Protein backbone atom coordinates (compact mmCIF):
# COMPACT_ATOMS: atom_id res chain seq x y z
CA UNK A 1 0.00 0.00 0.00
CA UNK A 2 2.79 2.35 0.86
CA UNK A 3 4.30 1.78 -2.53
CA UNK A 4 1.22 2.91 -4.40
CA UNK A 5 2.12 5.82 -6.63
CA UNK A 6 -0.22 8.36 -8.06
CA UNK A 7 0.17 8.51 -11.80
CA UNK A 8 0.63 11.85 -13.49
CA UNK A 9 -2.54 11.25 -15.48
CA UNK A 10 -4.54 11.75 -12.30
CA UNK A 11 -4.40 15.42 -11.70
CA UNK A 12 -7.68 16.37 -10.05
CA UNK A 13 -10.01 15.07 -7.35
CA UNK A 14 -12.51 14.21 -10.07
CA UNK A 15 -9.87 12.01 -11.70
CA UNK A 16 -9.51 10.18 -8.40
CA UNK A 17 -13.26 9.64 -8.15
CA UNK A 18 -13.45 8.58 -11.77
CA UNK A 19 -10.63 6.06 -11.29
CA UNK A 20 -12.35 4.65 -8.21
CA UNK A 21 -15.66 4.35 -10.07
CA UNK A 22 -13.85 2.61 -12.92
CA UNK A 23 -12.11 0.29 -10.53
CA UNK A 24 -15.37 -0.51 -8.76
CA UNK A 25 -17.03 -1.26 -12.11
CA UNK A 26 -14.16 -3.57 -13.07
CA UNK A 27 -14.30 -5.24 -9.71
CA UNK A 28 -18.05 -5.74 -10.05
CA UNK A 29 -17.66 -7.11 -13.54
CA UNK A 30 -14.99 -9.60 -12.48
CA UNK A 31 -17.09 -10.61 -9.49
CA UNK A 32 -20.10 -11.20 -11.76
CA UNK A 33 -17.90 -13.15 -14.18
CA UNK A 34 -16.67 -15.43 -11.41
CA UNK A 35 -20.29 -16.29 -10.56
CA UNK A 36 -21.27 -16.84 -14.17
CA UNK A 37 -21.59 -20.29 -15.74
CA UNK A 38 -18.68 -21.49 -17.84
CA UNK A 39 -18.87 -21.46 -21.56
CA UNK A 40 -20.42 -18.05 -21.83
CA UNK A 41 -18.27 -15.40 -23.30
CA UNK A 42 -17.73 -12.13 -21.43
CA UNK A 43 -15.97 -9.02 -22.50
CA UNK A 44 -13.98 -6.94 -20.05
CA UNK A 45 -15.24 -3.41 -19.69
CA UNK A 46 -12.89 -0.88 -21.17
CA UNK A 47 -10.45 0.60 -18.71
CA UNK A 48 -8.88 3.97 -19.09
CA UNK A 49 -5.22 4.57 -19.48
CA UNK A 50 -5.35 6.46 -16.26
CA UNK A 51 -6.42 3.37 -14.29
CA UNK A 52 -3.98 1.16 -16.16
CA UNK A 53 -1.08 3.50 -15.48
CA UNK A 54 -2.14 3.80 -11.84
CA UNK A 55 -2.05 0.02 -11.45
CA UNK A 56 1.15 -0.34 -13.44
CA UNK A 57 2.99 2.40 -11.56
CA UNK A 58 2.00 0.74 -8.32
CA UNK A 59 2.94 -2.78 -9.48
CA UNK A 60 -0.62 -3.97 -9.04
CA UNK A 61 -2.53 -6.45 -11.21
CA UNK A 62 -6.10 -5.37 -11.75
CA UNK A 63 -7.15 -8.98 -12.38
CA UNK A 64 -6.25 -9.85 -8.79
CA UNK A 65 -8.94 -9.05 -6.29
CA UNK A 66 -6.47 -8.33 -3.52
CA UNK A 67 -4.68 -5.79 -5.71
CA UNK A 68 -7.96 -4.25 -6.74
CA UNK A 69 -8.97 -3.95 -3.12
CA UNK A 70 -5.65 -2.34 -2.23
CA UNK A 71 -5.98 0.10 -5.10
CA UNK A 72 -9.57 0.92 -4.15
CA UNK A 73 -8.56 1.60 -0.57
CA UNK A 74 -5.68 3.72 -1.84
CA UNK A 75 -8.03 5.74 -4.04
CA UNK A 76 -10.59 6.09 -1.25
CA UNK A 77 -7.87 7.31 1.06
CA UNK A 78 -6.66 9.83 -1.52
CA UNK A 79 -10.20 11.03 -2.19
CA UNK A 80 -10.57 11.77 1.51
CA UNK A 81 -7.10 12.88 2.45
CA UNK A 82 -5.10 13.93 -0.60
CA UNK A 83 -4.10 17.62 -0.44
CA UNK A 84 -6.00 19.65 -3.01
CA UNK A 85 -4.61 22.79 -4.59
CA UNK A 86 -7.01 25.04 -6.50
CA UNK A 87 -5.38 26.76 -9.43
CA UNK A 88 -7.13 29.31 -11.60
CA UNK A 89 -5.85 30.16 -15.07
CA UNK A 90 -6.87 32.71 -17.65
CA UNK A 91 -7.70 29.92 -20.11
CA UNK A 92 -8.28 26.20 -20.05
CA UNK A 93 -4.90 24.46 -19.55
CA UNK A 94 -3.90 21.57 -21.79
CA UNK A 95 -3.38 18.07 -20.40
CA UNK A 96 0.29 18.32 -21.09
CA UNK A 97 0.59 21.60 -19.29
CA UNK A 98 -1.40 20.27 -16.37
CA UNK A 99 0.67 17.06 -16.27
CA UNK A 100 3.90 19.03 -16.12
CA UNK A 101 2.54 21.26 -13.44
CA UNK A 102 1.23 18.38 -11.31
CA UNK A 103 4.52 16.55 -11.73
CA UNK A 104 6.37 19.56 -10.39
CA UNK A 105 3.92 19.90 -7.54
CA UNK A 106 4.24 16.23 -6.54
CA UNK A 107 7.97 16.46 -6.70
CA UNK A 108 8.31 19.67 -4.77
CA UNK A 109 5.18 20.11 -2.68
CA UNK A 110 3.54 16.79 -1.86
CA UNK A 111 3.62 13.38 -3.67
CA UNK A 112 -0.17 12.93 -3.59
CA UNK A 113 -1.27 16.44 -4.33
CA UNK A 114 -4.12 16.94 -6.80
CA UNK A 115 -5.09 20.10 -8.58
CA UNK A 116 -8.56 21.53 -8.97
CA UNK A 117 -8.51 23.76 -12.05
CA UNK A 118 -10.62 26.88 -12.40
CA UNK A 119 -10.96 29.65 -14.96
CA UNK A 120 -10.41 33.33 -14.23
CA UNK A 121 -9.97 35.26 -17.50
CA UNK A 122 -9.41 38.58 -15.75
CA UNK A 123 -5.96 37.58 -14.55
CA UNK A 124 -4.71 37.60 -18.18
CA UNK A 125 -1.67 35.50 -17.45
CA UNK A 126 -0.16 33.49 -14.60
CA UNK A 127 -2.40 31.80 -12.08
CA UNK A 128 -4.05 32.12 -8.70
CA UNK A 129 -3.23 29.35 -6.26
CA UNK A 130 -5.52 28.62 -3.34
CA UNK A 131 -4.66 26.11 -0.65
CA UNK A 132 -6.76 25.16 2.35
CA UNK A 133 -6.01 28.36 4.25
CA UNK A 134 -4.25 30.74 1.91
CA UNK A 135 -4.32 32.26 -1.53
CA UNK A 136 -1.31 33.09 -3.68
CA UNK A 137 -1.96 35.48 -6.52
CA UNK A 138 0.71 34.70 -9.10
CA UNK A 139 -1.10 36.45 -11.93
CA UNK A 140 0.19 39.07 -14.32
CA UNK A 141 -2.42 41.47 -12.99
CA UNK A 142 -1.05 41.13 -9.47
CA UNK A 143 2.48 41.42 -10.79
CA UNK A 144 1.58 44.68 -12.52
CA UNK A 145 -0.19 45.92 -9.40
CA UNK A 146 2.91 45.12 -7.35
CA UNK A 147 4.95 47.26 -9.70
CA UNK A 148 2.67 50.26 -9.37
CA UNK A 149 5.14 52.11 -7.15
CA UNK A 150 7.94 51.57 -9.64
CA UNK A 151 5.65 52.66 -12.45
CA UNK A 152 4.76 55.86 -10.60
CA UNK A 153 8.43 56.55 -9.98
CA UNK A 154 9.07 56.11 -13.67
CA UNK A 155 6.14 58.39 -14.36
CA UNK A 156 7.70 61.05 -12.13
CA UNK A 157 11.05 60.58 -13.79
CA UNK A 158 12.62 59.09 -10.67
CA UNK A 159 14.93 56.11 -10.70
CA UNK A 160 13.14 53.13 -9.15
CA UNK A 161 15.09 51.57 -6.31
Amino acid at each position, binding site marked *: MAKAILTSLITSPSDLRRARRELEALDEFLHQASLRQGGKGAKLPPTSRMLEDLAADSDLNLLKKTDRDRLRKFLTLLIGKAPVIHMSFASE*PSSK*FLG*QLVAWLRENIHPQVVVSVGLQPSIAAGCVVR*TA*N*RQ*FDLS*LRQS*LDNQTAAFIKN*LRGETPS
Partner: protein
Amino acid sequence: MSSLTTWWFVGILGVLLAVTLLLIFVAMHSGSKRKGHRSKESPKDAQTLVDQEVEHIFNDAFREELRNRGRLHFEKIIGENAMFLQQDLRLTTSQLNEYMKTEITRKLKEEFTKYEESIMDAKQLAVDSIQKTNTAIDEQRAILGTQLQAQVAEEKKYLVDKFETDMTRVVNHYILESIGNQIDLSDQLGYIIGELEANKKEIIKDISNG
Protein backbone atom coordinates in the same frame (compact mmCIF):
# COMPACT_ATOMS: atom_id res chain seq x y z
CA MET B 1 -33.47 148.62 55.44
CA SER B 2 -35.81 147.71 58.32
CA SER B 3 -33.47 149.36 60.85
CA LEU B 4 -33.76 152.62 58.96
CA THR B 5 -37.54 152.51 59.21
CA THR B 6 -37.32 151.87 62.93
CA TRP B 7 -35.14 154.94 63.38
CA TRP B 8 -37.62 157.00 61.45
CA PHE B 9 -40.41 155.74 63.66
CA VAL B 10 -38.43 156.48 66.83
CA GLY B 11 -37.61 159.96 65.56
CA ILE B 12 -41.24 160.74 64.89
CA LEU B 13 -42.22 159.52 68.34
CA GLY B 14 -39.48 161.68 69.87
CA VAL B 15 -40.76 164.78 68.05
CA LEU B 16 -44.30 164.03 69.22
CA LEU B 17 -43.10 163.58 72.79
CA ALA B 18 -41.15 166.86 72.64
CA VAL B 19 -44.21 168.72 71.35
CA THR B 20 -46.32 167.19 74.10
CA LEU B 21 -43.79 168.20 76.79
CA LEU B 22 -43.66 171.71 75.33
CA LEU B 23 -47.42 172.04 75.48
CA ILE B 24 -47.43 170.78 79.07
CA PHE B 25 -44.75 173.28 79.95
CA VAL B 26 -46.73 176.14 78.38
CA ALA B 27 -49.87 175.10 80.15
CA MET B 28 -48.14 174.92 83.47
CA HIS B 29 -46.49 178.26 82.91
CA SER B 30 -49.75 179.93 82.15
CA GLY B 31 -51.22 178.22 85.15
CA SER B 32 -48.54 179.62 87.45
CA LYS B 33 -49.31 183.05 86.16
CA ARG B 34 -52.84 182.54 87.08
CA LYS B 35 -51.83 181.11 90.37
CA GLY B 36 -51.62 184.51 91.77
CA HIS B 37 -55.22 184.84 91.01
CA ARG B 38 -56.07 181.45 92.16
CA SER B 39 -53.53 180.94 94.86
CA LYS B 40 -56.24 180.09 97.11
CA GLU B 41 -57.36 177.15 94.97
CA SER B 42 -56.82 173.65 96.20
CA PRO B 43 -54.35 171.15 94.54
CA LYS B 44 -57.32 169.12 93.58
CA ASP B 45 -58.59 171.98 91.57
CA ALA B 46 -55.20 172.44 90.00
CA GLN B 47 -55.11 168.85 88.89
CA THR B 48 -58.54 169.18 87.45
CA LEU B 49 -57.37 172.28 85.69
CA VAL B 50 -54.40 170.45 84.24
CA ASP B 51 -56.63 167.68 83.05
CA GLN B 52 -58.89 170.16 81.48
CA GLU B 53 -56.00 171.84 79.73
CA VAL B 54 -54.71 168.55 78.54
CA GLU B 55 -58.15 167.72 77.33
CA HIS B 56 -58.24 171.11 75.73
CA ILE B 57 -54.97 170.41 73.84
CA PHE B 58 -55.46 166.75 73.10
CA ASN B 59 -59.02 167.08 71.98
CA ASP B 60 -60.68 164.59 69.69
CA ALA B 61 -59.79 166.45 66.55
CA PHE B 62 -56.13 166.54 67.48
CA ARG B 63 -56.20 162.85 68.39
CA GLU B 64 -57.90 162.06 65.13
CA GLU B 65 -55.31 164.02 63.26
CA LEU B 66 -52.52 162.24 65.12
CA ARG B 67 -54.18 158.92 64.41
CA ASN B 68 -54.48 159.81 60.73
CA ARG B 69 -50.94 160.89 60.61
CA GLY B 70 -49.81 157.73 62.33
CA ARG B 71 -51.90 155.64 59.97
CA LEU B 72 -50.53 157.47 56.95
CA HIS B 73 -47.03 157.12 58.27
CA PHE B 74 -47.59 153.51 59.07
CA GLU B 75 -48.99 152.90 55.62
CA LYS B 76 -46.05 154.75 54.16
CA ILE B 77 -43.70 152.63 56.20
CA ILE B 78 -45.59 149.53 55.23
CA GLY B 79 -45.44 150.58 51.57
CA GLU B 80 -41.76 151.35 51.80
CA ASN B 81 -41.12 148.10 53.56
CA ALA B 82 -43.15 146.30 50.94
CA MET B 83 -41.13 148.02 48.27
CA PHE B 84 -37.89 147.20 50.06
CA LEU B 85 -39.12 143.68 50.56
CA GLN B 86 -40.02 143.46 46.90
CA GLN B 87 -36.62 144.80 45.94
CA ASP B 88 -35.00 142.37 48.33
CA LEU B 89 -37.12 139.62 46.93
CA ARG B 90 -36.20 140.56 43.38
CA LEU B 91 -32.59 140.85 44.31
CA THR B 92 -32.73 137.55 46.15
CA THR B 93 -34.56 135.97 43.25
CA SER B 94 -32.02 137.38 40.83
CA GLN B 95 -29.16 136.18 43.01
CA LEU B 96 -30.88 132.87 43.42
CA ASN B 97 -31.33 132.62 39.68
CA GLU B 98 -27.74 133.55 39.16
CA TYR B 99 -26.68 131.08 41.80
CA MET B 100 -28.87 128.38 40.33
CA LYS B 101 -27.61 129.17 36.87
CA THR B 102 -24.04 129.07 38.06
CA GLU B 103 -24.57 125.87 40.03
CA ILE B 104 -26.49 124.20 37.26
CA THR B 105 -23.89 125.27 34.74
CA ARG B 106 -21.14 124.02 37.01
CA LYS B 107 -22.98 120.77 37.63
CA LEU B 108 -23.73 120.39 33.96
CA LYS B 109 -20.10 121.05 33.14
CA GLU B 110 -19.05 118.48 35.70
CA GLU B 111 -21.57 115.99 34.38
CA PHE B 112 -20.59 116.72 30.81
CA THR B 113 -16.96 116.31 31.78
CA LYS B 114 -17.77 112.98 33.42
CA TYR B 115 -19.92 112.02 30.48
CA GLU B 116 -17.13 112.98 28.11
CA GLU B 117 -14.67 110.98 30.18
CA SER B 118 -17.05 108.02 30.15
CA ILE B 119 -17.44 108.35 26.42
CA MET B 120 -13.68 108.59 26.01
CA ASP B 121 -13.24 105.51 28.20
CA ALA B 122 -15.90 103.65 26.25
CA LYS B 123 -14.30 104.80 23.03
CA GLN B 124 -10.90 103.64 24.26
CA LEU B 125 -12.42 100.33 25.29
CA ALA B 126 -14.08 99.99 21.92
CA VAL B 127 -10.83 100.87 20.15
CA ASP B 128 -8.95 98.34 22.28
CA SER B 129 -11.61 95.74 21.62
CA ILE B 130 -11.50 96.47 17.89
CA GLN B 131 -7.73 96.25 17.92
CA LYS B 132 -7.89 92.94 19.77
CA THR B 133 -10.51 91.71 17.35
CA ASN B 134 -8.37 92.82 14.42
CA THR B 135 -5.38 91.07 15.92
CA ALA B 136 -7.44 87.91 16.47
CA ILE B 137 -8.81 88.14 12.95
CA ASP B 138 -5.30 88.55 11.56
CA GLU B 139 -4.09 85.56 13.55
CA GLN B 140 -7.11 83.54 12.49
CA ARG B 141 -6.57 84.60 8.90
CA ALA B 142 -2.95 83.50 9.11
CA ILE B 143 -3.97 80.16 10.62
CA LEU B 144 -6.68 79.72 8.03
CA GLY B 145 -4.23 80.62 5.31
CA THR B 146 -1.79 78.04 6.58
CA GLN B 147 -4.51 75.45 6.90
CA LEU B 148 -5.81 76.30 3.46
CA GLN B 149 -2.38 75.99 1.95
CA ALA B 150 -1.88 72.66 3.71
CA GLN B 151 -5.29 71.50 2.55
CA VAL B 152 -4.62 72.62 -1.00
CA ALA B 153 -1.28 70.84 -0.93
CA GLU B 154 -2.95 67.77 0.49
CA GLU B 155 -5.69 67.92 -2.11
CA LYS B 156 -3.11 68.40 -4.83
CA LYS B 157 -1.14 65.43 -3.56
CA TYR B 158 -4.34 63.39 -3.38
CA LEU B 159 -5.24 64.31 -6.95
CA VAL B 160 -1.74 63.58 -8.22
CA ASP B 161 -1.68 60.26 -6.36
CA LYS B 162 -5.12 59.41 -7.67
CA PHE B 163 -4.06 60.36 -11.17
CA GLU B 164 -0.97 58.22 -10.90
CA THR B 165 -2.91 55.31 -9.44
CA ASP B 166 -5.59 55.64 -12.07
CA MET B 167 -2.92 55.96 -14.69
CA THR B 168 -1.27 52.73 -13.53
CA ARG B 169 -4.69 51.12 -13.46
CA VAL B 170 -5.37 52.28 -16.99
CA VAL B 171 -1.99 51.12 -18.20
CA ASN B 172 -2.37 47.78 -16.43
CA HIS B 173 -5.81 47.36 -17.89
CA TYR B 174 -4.48 48.25 -21.33
CA ILE B 175 -1.60 45.78 -21.00
CA LEU B 176 -3.87 43.02 -19.74
CA GLU B 177 -6.39 43.67 -22.48
CA SER B 178 -3.69 43.90 -25.12
CA ILE B 179 -1.47 40.98 -24.37
CA GLY B 180 -3.51 38.95 -21.90
CA ASN B 181 -5.12 36.78 -24.52
CA GLN B 182 -2.02 36.62 -26.65
CA ILE B 183 0.12 34.70 -24.17
CA ASP B 184 -0.21 30.94 -24.50
CA LEU B 185 -0.60 29.10 -21.24
CA SER B 186 2.18 26.68 -22.17
CA ASP B 187 4.52 29.62 -22.46
CA GLN B 188 3.63 30.62 -18.96
CA LEU B 189 4.72 27.33 -17.39
CA GLY B 190 8.19 28.58 -16.57
CA TYR B 191 6.83 31.75 -15.04
CA ILE B 192 4.21 29.86 -13.02
CA ILE B 193 6.69 27.28 -11.75
CA GLY B 194 9.07 30.10 -10.85
CA GLU B 195 6.35 31.81 -8.83
CA LEU B 196 5.41 28.49 -7.21
CA GLU B 197 9.05 27.94 -6.37
CA ALA B 198 9.15 31.36 -4.72
CA ASN B 199 6.11 30.48 -2.58
CA LYS B 200 7.01 26.83 -2.14
CA LYS B 201 7.70 26.94 1.59
CA GLU B 202 4.48 28.71 2.41
CA ILE B 203 2.44 26.33 0.25
CA ILE B 204 4.06 23.27 1.89
CA LYS B 205 3.49 24.79 5.32
CA ASP B 206 -0.17 25.47 4.61
CA ILE B 207 -0.73 21.98 3.14
CA SER B 208 0.97 20.41 6.17
CA ASN B 209 -1.22 22.45 8.55
CA GLY B 210 -4.39 21.94 6.51
